[in-house]
């Protein structure tokens, strides 16, 4: 029975867990149930990916109503890969959460915290697996509302402003998306993505369709923090509790990039995009975004904020692949989606381990900590190398494909920008490494009150999940069968005309 309903159970299991966790007494129970659920979902996502890796497509009819009337879950290689990322990151973040949440969030909010986390998890998985564009909006709202709540739980007061800023921007994004969907529905009378893709070609010339497309693009550009619509992201990532930053940085924007891919290639079709200035616009914004945000990252004084700006730059790489629009470009986007989740997850976790020990994420407070926390420091170095794109790490693979895609289409400027972006990444990663290892430790202890007592390695509960991601970064730098293989399989389905 489970075989047939696998794709649905992935979404329903965390949905069932959320209300149960919410009423449990505060203690370790909410955490244990959430962790077990995330592991089960991860296992199911692995099986699902194996099922579709041959290029087949799973279709699940919700409520037994046949599509296009009923809601359909449609799983192919592309969204199975994204579901694997989301569930995999949740499965390593939750074990990490135990210690970190105990320190950062007041005890009476623990069960509600895990309930919101489960809801966010459900929402992200639902966006990924659904084949119905309105159902996608519903899950988008579930994941967004719960993430606003999660971000606002940060320890500093600025968390509230950050969360409110994200709420306003995110709501505008979601509203734009639903306006676009409404226009599409008015023109075609359907909400099923497959059905839309069949009915749209004869309406390509219609102005309403162009308006709908523009609304959907701007809406999701806000959600995925495409430069210059990224203003909510640095604050949200800086002030959110560590666990939330790790989870959202590694999954939320990735899911939004996936939706972009799906809408552009599966619903509208790339022929439509090529007639509009969208692809050129994406390329220009990404090029400016990569360079500017990398510069911004260099000048940050807060480690979390530095990584947040670097995230915006990295999103530029993903969208560049879409802008290039060739088979290689989309492969690069999908592979970078996966790899960036691994490296940002690892880096934010390592910074989180430092925050756990010294209670601050300001870079000047971290002087000389590398010698006291060798394992955390090593994780930052390897994660940073992956972020730069050094051969032998996962980051190299995705940049390699992106450069190949740019060369194939003779976009020489983009090749230069990708390389320049990597050089800028060297500078901001070095900034962290320098402070952590080469600056003498500030022994006066005046900066953070408990600094002297806690200058030792982080607990194993934080280190093990961090190192799982670090090892994954290296592993996927050598073995690209899963990432590139699945991405190429997905490209065959997204770009049927090119094969």
């Amino acid at each position, binding site marked *: 029975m489970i075989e047939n309903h696998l794709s*649905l159970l992935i979404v*329903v299991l965390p*949905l*069932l867990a959320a209300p*149960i966790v*919410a*009423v449990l007494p505060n203690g370790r129970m909410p955490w244990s149930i959430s962790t077990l659920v995330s592991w089960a979902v991860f296992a199911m996502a692995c099986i699902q990916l194996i099922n579709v890796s041959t290029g087949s497509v799973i279709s699940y009819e919700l*409520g*037994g109503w046949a599509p296009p009337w009923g809601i359909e879950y449609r799983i192919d290689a592309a969204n199975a890969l994204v579901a694997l990322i989301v569930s995999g990151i949740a499965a390593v973040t939750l074990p990490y959460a135990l210690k970190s949440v105990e320190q950062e969030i007041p005890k009476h909010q623990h069960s509600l915290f895990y309930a919101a986390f489960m809801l966010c998890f459900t929402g992200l998985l639902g966006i990924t697996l659904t084949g119905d564009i309105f159902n996608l909006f519903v899950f988008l709202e579930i994941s967004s509302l719960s993430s606003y709540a999660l971000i606002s739980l940060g320890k500093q007061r600025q968390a509230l402003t950050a969360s409110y800023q994200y709420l306003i921007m995110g709501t505008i994004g979601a509203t734009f998306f639903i306006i676009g969907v409404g226009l599409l529905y008015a023109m075609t009378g359907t909400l099923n993505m497959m059905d839309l893709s069949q009915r749209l070609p004869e309406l390509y010339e219609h102005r309403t369709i162009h308006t709908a497309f523009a609304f959907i693009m701007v809406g999701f550009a806000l959600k995925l923090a495409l430069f210059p619509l990224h203003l909510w992201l640095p604050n949200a990532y800086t002030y959110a509790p560590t666990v939330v930053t790790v989870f959202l940085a590694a999954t939320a924007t990735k899911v939004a990039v996936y939706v972009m891919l799906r809408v552009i290639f599966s619903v509208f079709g790339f022929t439509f995009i090529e007639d509009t200035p969208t692809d050129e616009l994406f390329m220009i914004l990404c090029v400016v975004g990569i360079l500017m945000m990398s510069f911004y990252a260099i000048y940050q004084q807060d480690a979390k904020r530095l990584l947040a700006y670097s995230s915006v730059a990295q999103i530029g790489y993903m969208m560049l692949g879409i802008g290039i629009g060739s088979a290689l470009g989309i492969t690069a986007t999908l592979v970078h989606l996966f790899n960036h989740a691994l490296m940002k997850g690892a880096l934010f976790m390592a910074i989180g381990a430092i925050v756990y020990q010294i209670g601050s994420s300001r870079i000047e407070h971290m002087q000389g900590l590398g010698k006291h926390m060798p394992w955390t420091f090593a994780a930052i170095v390897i994660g940073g190398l992956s972020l730069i794109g050094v051969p032998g790490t996962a980051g190299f693979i995705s940049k390699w494909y992106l450069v190949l895609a740019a060369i194939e289409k003779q976009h020489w400027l983009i090749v230069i920008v990708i390389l320049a972006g990597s050089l800028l990444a060297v500078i901001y990663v070095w900034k962290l490494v320098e402070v952590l290892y080469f600056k003498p430790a500030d022994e006066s202890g005046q900066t953070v009150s408990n600094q002297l007592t806690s200058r030792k390695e982080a607990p194993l509960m934080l280190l093990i999940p961090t190192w799982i991601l670090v090892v994954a970064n290296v592993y996927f730098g050598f073995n690209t069968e899963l990432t590139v293989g699945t991405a190429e399989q997905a490209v065959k389905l997204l770009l049927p005309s090119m094969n």
Partner: protein
Amino acid sequence: MKHNLILRVVSKFLIPLIFLFALYVQFHGDFGPGGGFQAGVIFSAAIILYALVFGVDSAKQVIPPSILLFLASLGVLIYAGTGVASLMMGGNYLEYGVLASTQLAGQHIGILLIELGVGITVMAVMLIMFFAFAERGRQQEDKKS
């Protein structure tokens, strides 16, 4: 509001009727306009009216906030659980038809259960929000005095 006799009498008269109307909207939702969301809002409106006229504290005695959190979760569980029940009985998720012996009866039971879940959650969440805002104002007054 303690001395406002007309308000007290009228709302005492109205509150049961509002409850009744909420239940009507709830259980008539499968054939007519209405359903869980509207019923939940109307139901909570009755309690909010009670809180406005008789004070938040007495309203909290009627429905303690700890129960509200439980009810809010229960509604979601009923909704998701109905889907799981139809899975167990051999259908797809939320395929109501398999819940009873005939397709029609199954559809009927299914939508009633779903709407019941929605109604309970909406009612509870409306009240949680109302109490949260009501508490906030009172905390500030306490600080002033």
